[in-house]
């Protein structure tokens, strides 16, 4: 390799490969998250969801993508054309750029910045310009209102979400994504167990930041039609869509890295070896999961109505088997490869679990009103996050300076924080019950 | 329906008044051989009066005491009380009905067109009293170019109802805060529920201009 490529470029090769992989795979992943969303929604709403394109709708995302690309690209007459063109690009570029510092596995990371977390937060917060400018450029009032709501919402909730993250940062003592995961491995505990309030604040904040229900006011269908996307169609619209799902994966990735142990396997310190070998039992889990999915696919395959669907279903099963094989095979390869493959697997599993929580919340709750959303952000989440930061800080001080037992210190401060949370929630209810007429 | 308490009427009525109700069209005078309507129902409990009969209960007496000539006639049709009043006094009578007689809800306000009559419109107000669980129908005659007092200030509910009446019949309500068409477009010509407005008729000019088609039919 070193002969083929000039040495000056070598450090840029792997990141480039990773970047290409991410840019290529991400739209597909977004498509399949949409399918997942529709399937989960259908399951919760007592129906089937997409069933026609491919077996159980497995090819639906591809059909959707083709449809979107072929749609007419409509630009309103009075739109600011340049901005209208650029806005979706800004959104999607910023969303993709944030992946630069996202650690999908111990090896799979484009760049390990020492301010990695801040970088991701900064860049993903720039996506708001895509929304704001797009809403403005559309020259439609629904769009503009959606954009304004979006901007106000993002600025408010970024504060809360950021403060939620601080608790994990205090525990990790680093801004580098890799070091944060490493800190969790070293301390032998996921930070969600130490700072659950911080995780909760970030969960709520991240839902609001990605404009998902119950905070989807910028695109509230029943009020603003489609918010800032109202005037967009076809390809440009799908760029916004891609950006939204990319952002969802980013916030899920941040939460996974900071609170859920990143690419670490569950129980990273539990070493139950298979008798007589150095293989760990828990490492077999990914393979077993894939084998189970594969068997399920094979069982479903003969029941598909059309021949081609049978084939596709069987192919899906085969793909799962292949992945299971890869998972199992990597166990026998070098530790680095094994870590990489399994780390990626666990990272994605956690991201998906986080996204599932998003979907679950979306299909369960009604939508907030804008003033309620703001009240929740400023009066509840931000104070709570501040108290939580102080609580975690206190716990660390108690441990390090006064030599308290770590778990004891954490429990004490956690109890105090939860007390404050209840107090805040109680306070929050008072103005909510007042009639709206105070303005008159 | 046999036990409809709302339409309970004091028993002062003559059992079979043949006095013909003025509000009904001349045609009604020929009740013809209209099939005896009571026929058939397993329990035929009551004799249905085919024509309205005069009504003279306490309510009517009170009304007459207050408004004298303005109460033209009170009748009972299918056990439902109808009071024919003078259109000019509508507002006063309505207010009295609301405040003194506790007819606190205006259920409906509408009109009927009798083109052959001198004053072609019947303006009809259906009132309901929560306290008495009773309905009362006020009826007033109005001519084509006559202005009728609006009752919006008495029952805000009359707002849209009077607009609809104006829209459909062209009855102008004096004192209505916002008398515009409500169901039809503002520039529409004609008032569809008038009897001389044919069912196939439409404002072709409007349709052509605004919908870009020759006919809405």
């Amino acid at each position: 390799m070193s002969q083929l490529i000039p040495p000056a470029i070598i450090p840029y090769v792997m990141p480039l490969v990773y970047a290409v992989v991410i840019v290529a795979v991400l739209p597909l992943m977004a498509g399949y998250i949409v399918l997942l969303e529709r399937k989960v929604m259908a399951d919760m709403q007592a129906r089937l969801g997409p069933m026609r394109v491919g077996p159980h709708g497995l090819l639906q995302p591809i059909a959707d993508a083709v449809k979107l690309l072929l749609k007419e690209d409509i630009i309103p007459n009075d739109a600011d054309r340049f901005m209208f063109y650029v806005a979706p690009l800004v959104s999607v570029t910023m969303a993709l750029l944030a992946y630069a510092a996202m650690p999908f596995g111990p090896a799979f990371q484009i760049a390990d910045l020492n301010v990695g977390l801040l970088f991701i937060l900064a860049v993903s917060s720039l996506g708001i310009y895509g929304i704001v400018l797009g809403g403005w450029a559309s020259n439609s009032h629904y769009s503009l209102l959606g954009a304004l709501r979006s901007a106000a919402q993002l600025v408010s909730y970024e504060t809360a979400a950021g403060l939620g993250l601080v608790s994990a940062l205090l525990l990790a003592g680093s801004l580098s994504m890799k070091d944060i995961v490493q800190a969790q491995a070293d301390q032998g505990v996921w930070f969600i167990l130490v700072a659950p309030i911080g995780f909760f604040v970030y969960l709520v904040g991240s839902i609001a930041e990605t404009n998902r229900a119950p905070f989807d006011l910028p695109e509230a269908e029943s009020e603003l039609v489609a918010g800032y996307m109202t005037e967009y169609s076809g390809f440009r619209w799908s760029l916004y869509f891609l950006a939204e799902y990319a952002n969802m994966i980013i916030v899920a990735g941040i939460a996974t890295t900071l609170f859920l142990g990143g690419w670490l396997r569950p129980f990273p310190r539990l070493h139950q070896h298979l008798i007589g070998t150095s293989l760990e039992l828990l490492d077999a889990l990914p393979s077993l999961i894939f084998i189970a999915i594969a068997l399920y696919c094979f069982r479903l395959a003969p029941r598909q109505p059309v021949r081609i669907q049978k084939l596709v279903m069987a192919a899906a099963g085969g793909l799962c088997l292949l992945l299971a094989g890869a998972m199992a095979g990597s166990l026998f390869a070098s530790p680095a490869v094994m870590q990489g493959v399994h780390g990626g697997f666990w990272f994605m599993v956690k991201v998906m679990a986080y996204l599932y929580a998003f979907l679950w919340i979306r299909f369960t709750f009604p939508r907030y009103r804008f003033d309620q959303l703001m009240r929740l952000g400023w009066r509840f989440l931000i104070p709570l996050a501040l108290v939580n930061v102080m609580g975690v800080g206190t716990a660390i001080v108690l441990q390090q300076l006064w030599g308290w037992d770590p778990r004891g210190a954490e429990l004490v401060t956690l109890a105090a924080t939860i007390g404050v949370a209840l107090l805040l929630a109680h306070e929050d209810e008072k103005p909510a019950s007042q009639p709206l007429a105070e303005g008159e | 329906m046999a036990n409809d308490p709302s339409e309970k009427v004091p028993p002062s009525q003559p059992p079979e008044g043949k006095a013909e109700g003025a509000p009904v069209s001349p045609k009604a005078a020929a009740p013809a051989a209209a099939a005896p309507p009571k026929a058939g129902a397993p329990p035929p409990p009551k004799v249905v009066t085919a024509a309205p009969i005069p009504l003279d209960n306490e309510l009517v007496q009170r009304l007459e005491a207050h408004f004298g000539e303005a109460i033209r006639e009170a009748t009972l049709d299918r056990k439902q009380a109808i009071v024919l009043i003078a259109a000019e006094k509508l507002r006063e009578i309505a207010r009295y009905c609301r405040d003194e007689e506790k007819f606190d809800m205006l259920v409906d306000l509408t009109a009927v067109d009798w083109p052959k009559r001198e004053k072609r419109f019947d303006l009809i107000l259906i009132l309901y009293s929560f306290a008495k669980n009773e309905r009362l129908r006020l009826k007033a005659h109005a001519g084509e170019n006559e202005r009728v007092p609006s009752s919006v200030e008495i029952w805000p509910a009359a707002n849209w109802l009077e607009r609809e009446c104006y829209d459909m019949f062209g009855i102008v309500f004096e004192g209505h805060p916002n008398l515009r068409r409500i169901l039809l477009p503002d520039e529409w010509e004609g008032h569809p529920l008038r009897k001389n407005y044919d069912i196939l008729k439409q404002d072709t000019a409007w349709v052509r201009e605004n919908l870009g088609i020759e006919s809405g039919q």
Partner: protein
Amino acid sequence: MSDSRTNGSSEVVTTVLGADEIILNMGPQHPSTHGVLRVKLKLDGERVVESECIIGYLHRGVEKIAEHRSYQQFAPYVDRMDYVAAVSNGLGYCEAVEKLLGAEAPPRARVVRTILTELQRIASHLLWLGTHALDIGALTPVFYCFREREEILKIFEKYCGARLTTHAFRIGGLQYETYDGFEEEVKRFCVDFAQKIDEYETLLTENRIWVGRTKGVGILSAADAIALGVTGPVLRASGVKWDLRKAQPYAAYDQYEFDIPTREAGDTYDRYLVRMEEMRQSRRICLQAIEKIPTGPIMAKVGKVLKPPPGEVYHSIEAPKGELGYYIVSDGTTQPYRVRVRPPSFINLQAFDKMARGSLVADVVAIIGTIDIVLGEVDR
């Protein structure tokens, strides 16, 4: 304004009036105006200063058509007014004409009418609940509601062949005898439905966001409600215990025990609770009625050609949305001289301005939903 009536776009027309007042136009094509309602809002910032409903986009001249049809011919037309509660419309019309004729439906017909009308009330409320929740952003209840509504529509379909515009009743009684297994199906639905209502309530009633979005929103006092002629669940949520089924019983309602749910605050949340309780009461009525459907004829002898004696009648029933009245004038011929429909949606919608003033724009959607209007009935 008039010229834009034909302009069926959903764009928002904004004009800068004074310093802060803008005019926001919602509809007639908007996801949550429940059809073709158009609302013009005058806003001070996010707060509604004044509102105006512009209606008539669905006007079909039903009352005019009535004057050119015979009494029986007009019966299917009424189904097209409140098309989500067609059975109730039919009941009101048939009973009004029967009253005009002086006829009365036989007991069996009256009980079957009661059952079907109560099922229709449940179906109508379910549709309202689903769409109302959807407007406020709860995506899931609508599917649960439609699942149960589907069961009701299946019963309708089996009974008369139609699901939506049923034309289930005839003047004088019923055309069709109930099908085999009607009682069991209705009973099974009613028994199952109890826990379904609880399911909806689990999703919404104590949900903080739901309560936050509906409590104190669109308040209508009892006095205002009466002055504006508002009827139905909207009136009852304001604290007026008045239900035509109790006040002036029709069909077979005098035979059954049920409560009139009322609430005091008159806000969106109370209207929600009233309607939820009404579904329970409807279920209770159905269960009582299905136990003892009298035997006997289903049609009174009214004759093939209906010529009611001259005169006029007003008859009203408690439709799912409020008092549905028919004022019919007969001139002794086979065609009604005048049919006036007192549409509950139309009159309840008039209270919108009262409810919306001072509320936020986001509440407008909730308020439109809570009045439970059907534009087919508003515009006729």
